[in-house]
């Protein structure tokens, strides 16, 4: 006698047969299927950072891949590992995914070895984004320290491409020394946009440096801020955004109008591995973009 225990085949579920779309969080999908993407161009930015242009090969997948500034992807080098990387490019440039990656370990190490034409995998986009809709009609502060310019570049694109929607835009950027400045070839372009001011500062000058020297907060001396008319996005290491946000808060910018992007260890991007957890908050789902008020209320956040 045989008991009719049936074989449940999840592939027969209607939902899972739909094309994978990571923007549909609740839908049953192949959570670990990657979109195969080609590294179509590599730009060396500094000794440690390179900018990678990725193009998803499958046309339908490329069409479905839409993101908002502040979101990240899980970038997989098959056989070597998977890492979270913020999308650094413009949301309007369909089909092109720009990732600025620092050589920091195994996976990023392989990526720095890879050449144009390499085939990698992408899952995503994941996480929250900067609320660029809400920021319309306000003065905008875009502040980055170090590698923070990588994630900040996406909202810079969004704001400059939709220039009429925003009022005054100040971009502030600081690094340790001039050799670490990222995207230096773009400064001229940003500077020339009407109503966009770019301020750069380094902690330690070299022989050729003629610009400002000091901590990033020093740049505030040069900028006129109307606290209740301002939104700020701050990307950088915790020490940096702590000081920056404390300053802004002191002069009266509401904490829920400052946005930061938090970094945590991530192994899934989907609220499952718990590695990115801060108290009860999942950085990959509830973040990485948080308003500063929320960050202040997160235990063990900074």
């Amino acid at each position: 006698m045989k008991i009719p225990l049936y074989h449940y085949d999840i592939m027969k579920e209607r939902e899972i047969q739909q094309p994978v779309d990571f923007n549909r969080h609740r839908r049953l999908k192949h959570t670990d299927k990657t979109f195969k993407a080609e590294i179509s161009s590599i730009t060396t930015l500094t000794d440690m950072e390179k900018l990678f242009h990725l193009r998803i090969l499958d046309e339908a997948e490329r069409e479905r891949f839409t993101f908002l500034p502040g979101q990240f992807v899980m970038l997989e080098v098959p056989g070597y590992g998977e890492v979270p990387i913020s999308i650094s490019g413009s949301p309007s440039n369909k089909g092109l995914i720009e990732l600025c990656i620092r050589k920091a370990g195994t996976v990023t190490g392989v990526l720095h070895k890879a050449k144009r034409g390499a085939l990698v995998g992408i899952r995503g986009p994941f996480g929250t984004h900067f609320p660029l809709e809400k920021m319309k009609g306000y003065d905008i502060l875009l502040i980055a320290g170090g590698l923070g310019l990588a994630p900040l570049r996406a909202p810079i694109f969004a704001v400059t491409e939709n220039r009429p929607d925003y009022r005054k835009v100040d971009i502030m950027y600081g690094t340790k020394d001039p050799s670490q400045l990222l995207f230096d070839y773009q400064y001229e372009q940003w500077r020339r946009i009407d109503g966009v001011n770019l301020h750069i500062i380094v902690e330690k000058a070299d022989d050729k440096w003629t610009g400002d020297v000091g901590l990033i907060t020093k740049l505030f001396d040069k900028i006129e801020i109307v606290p209740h008319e301002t939104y700020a996005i701050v990307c950088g290491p915790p020490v940096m955004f702590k000081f920056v946000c404390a300053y802004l808060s002191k002069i009266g910018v509401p904490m829920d109008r400052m946005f930061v992007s938090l970094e945590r260890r991530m192994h899934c991007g989907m609220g499952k591995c718990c590695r990115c957890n801060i108290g009860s908050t999942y950085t990959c789902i509830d973040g990485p973009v948080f308003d500063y008020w929320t960050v202040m209320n997160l235990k063990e956040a900074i």
Partner: protein
Amino acid sequence: MLFKLLDKDEFKNLVNILLQSNEVIAPKQVGVNVTGKTLHQYLPVTSFDEIDLTYETTQYSAKTYFLPYKENLSTYRFDEKDWKQEIRYRQEPRVMLGLHACDIHALLKLDKVLARDNFPSPYYIARRKNAFIIGIDHEPCEGGFCRSLGTDTVNNGFDLFLTDLGERYFVSINTDLGYRVLLQVKTKDVTEEDTRKYLLTRKSISDAFQTHVNVQNLPNLLDLEFESKVWNKWGQKCLSCGSCSMVCPTCYCYGVTERVSMDFKSGAKVKQLYSCNLVDFATVAGGHNFRPNRETRLKYRYYHQHRGFVESYDEPKCVGCNRCGRVCLAEINPPDIIRDIQMEER
């Protein structure tokens, strides 16, 4: 829910029928410890006699049949300049025989995270839906505090559930599949007398609980006592060995690593269960560790169990089986820690 009576001989028949064409996992004695206590584990069995349904508890929970310690999320074939990704989900049915209420509750809790929330996991769902679950009532295990958490009885999450009435089992039938499976053997209808006996048995089980833990207001307390010395006291003992999470029926977190074969022709993305007590759980590239101390890591484990999960799903993640407490060489256990936290407040 439907109820039937099943003579023990008929139950044996049922198990033998199930064994004929299915993988069956059931409690099995694996040895005795130094103090003479018998040790059990859920293991694949091939005959009825290997099964010991009178077991007190198992060292390892049943979760590993749903969340294996190691699992390939995908595999790769590398072919010169190209690669191909392959993903496979479980399709084979499996009988999980003799689970206690806490283990079934644990699955219900895992369902909330892994089957129903954002990004449902096809790997988990495929295993879950391929499991035929037969639960069983039992005397409370030593140190178990499931009653305090309301996980000592269970109303869903199984196909069949047995309560031992001596000569026969009182069977609760929760699914159509359970009903059809039961049709293979002779069952009897439940009389009023049987129902009375069943309720008496249930009551005597409830009355037998020795360990009580006050979880009232616990999420709030944990928040208030974030800087409490309690964590220091227990944290100092913690070996950061992860054993607690490995045996816990509801700990599901993991790490992912990838590997390539030596001929560089294939690779795999491997998921491995992890523990927030392990030293590098929250270490990021460059070496910064967001939880560098044992006590912050231990505290975090309790936060996830008794606060974080409550915030997301309105109930604690812990089912009170005390497996973590029993396995911990440093004798760190939830009843003592929770008691300390409650004391702190007074």
